[in-house]
């Protein structure tokens, strides 16, 4: 065997290690969660119990909390990122470059610092300023999703922190989509008298829709699995949040909170939660890749 073949095989082994690792992650989580699935069956997904005394557990509050915080984060992050990308692609390069660099640095700050900032700065601010304003000044307390109770913690605040975390990612990718739209299309739009905003909305958005959706899904995937930023702020009660200001928990926060002290059935339950989160984010990632590949294919066709 020549050294070339040897090298080739060595490289191949390393490359194939990656899918193997991915399979191993699935397999080990599935293996360790069998006890939970056997005990509760699929009703585990929709059960709201969480009682360590009687060993009854359900995943529903965690799942609802995860989806709620992610949803709130995306409601804020998507339009904000789109506008940011719109602005960044529109101004001359020498002034957009430092702003883009700033956004990239924002993406580099560790999530635990976002969590701290949320806990010590944003939570008191929400509690004393924003939430009283929404509930009392705007009289929205009878609105079904909002409710009159608030204490600063909860899904809404967590969603805002998540939004701040994912905006840099989404807007950087959206900026690329804006940049990659063929100049000819944009110039034609300008030529027939479209304003910049109309060009962005009617030309770039239509042309790069798949890329934009891919960018949104990238952010979605990050928000879904984020642990630390949410853990500090969500309130960590094992119940379904009463409204958007209500405390709750997410899958990742439940794992982080209970895992170290758990054993027996509870540990298995936490592994089951882990595999639910894994499947959720796996699905999101596959959709992301689908949209990004479609976007790439479209650019290739040109």
């Amino acid at each position: 065997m020549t050294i070339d073949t040897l090298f080739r095989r060595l490289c191949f082994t390393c490359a194939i290690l990656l899918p193997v690792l991915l399979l191993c992650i699935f397999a080990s989580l599935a293996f360790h969660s069998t006890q939970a699935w056997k005990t509760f069956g699929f009703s585990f997904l929709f059960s709201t119990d969480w009682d360590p005394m009687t060993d009854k557990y359900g995943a529903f509050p965690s799942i609802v909390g995860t989806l709620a915080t992610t949803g709130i984060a995306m409601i804020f992050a998507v339009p904000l990122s789109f506008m940011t990308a719109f602005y960044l692609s529109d101004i001359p390069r020498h002034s957009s470059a430092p702003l883009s660099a700033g956004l990239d640095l924002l993406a580099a700050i560790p999530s635990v610092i976002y969590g701290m900032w949320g806990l010590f700065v944003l939570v008191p601010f929400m509690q004393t300023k924003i939430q009283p304003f929404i509930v009392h000044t705007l009289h929205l307390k009878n609105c079904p999703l909002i409710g009159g109770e608030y204490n600063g913690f909860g899904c809404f605040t967590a969603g805002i922190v998540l939004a701040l975390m994912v905006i840099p990612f989404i807007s950087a990718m959206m900026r690329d989509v804006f940049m990659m739209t063929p100049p000819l299309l944009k110039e034609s739009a300008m030529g027939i008298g479209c304003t910049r905003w109309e060009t962005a909305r009617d030309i770039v958005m239509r042309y790069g829709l798949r890329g934009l959706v891919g960018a949104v899904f990238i952010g979605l995937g990050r928000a879904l699995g984020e642990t630390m930023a949410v853990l500090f702020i969500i309130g960590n009660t094992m119940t379904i949040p009463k409204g958007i200001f209500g405390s709750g928990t997410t899958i990742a926060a439940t794992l982080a909170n209970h895992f170290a002290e758990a054993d027996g059935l509870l540990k298995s339950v936490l592994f089951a939660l882990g595999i639910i989160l894994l499947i959720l984010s796996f699905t999101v990632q596959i959709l992301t890749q689908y949209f990004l590949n479609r976007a790439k294919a479209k650019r290739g066709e040109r």
Partner: protein
Amino acid sequence: MKRRSPVFRKIEERAARVVSILILTVSLGAMLGIIGTTLIRGLPVLSWSFITQPSKPYGIESSGIANAFQGTLYITAMATLITLPLAVLGGIWLAEFGRNSRLGNAIRFCANVMMGIPSIITGLFIYAVWVVPTGHFSGFAGSLALGIIMFPIVLRTTEDMLLLVPDSLREASLALGMNRVRATLQVVCRSAKSGLITGILMAFARVSGETAPLLFTALWSNSWCGHYFSGPTANLPVLITEYTTNSPYEAQHAAGWGAALVMMIVILALNLLVRYFFTERKA
């Protein structure tokens, strides 16, 4: 198409601009807010003893973060050491041998998917396959968890950087009679060097702030890292978590901000270094 009045369109255009400027200000303002808060609350805590003393239980004077810093360094360095050769070789396979093959595409797809998997899941995985069989938490388990996060990142950047190297360079070196190994390592990898370094530094910076995977693997301790392979190992992110959430004391909150400041400075410095390398490569 419906006609719209020019006045309305002009107003809409102005509004879009104003709103987008406002939004950019808000997101950059939030960043400055976070950095500023960390500076304001962290700076008063910083002192010589804070960065040279190990952390101590509450109430003991001259507590610091040196052991956590040391632990973070050990854990991330070991993660890099384990993952680097594997990921770079894997990337070489994708770029040099598996180009356009079905298996290559499948592996690339897996890598992209794996980059988006929540970091806490890798902690769970390592807990299941390393902490449970060995019977104890350890800094090494933390390294393994971070290594899994680094793996797809380094693999994909290696591939991307090698693909930037023109094929004529490969053909030229093969025509000179080099074998594939030498052509790949000495010509292709060398000309992609700064790109590779960028990728590695980026992955390093990314995982050095990761907290979630360390919660169930490295855990946390107040001692120096003598038990890197056999016992809980101190590290900065978990120290911050402990001090912020599980402590009622103001002094420990303040120490948490100090630790956060140190971590943020290191990570932002790493990122600036990456940018420096990256612009070097372009020039």
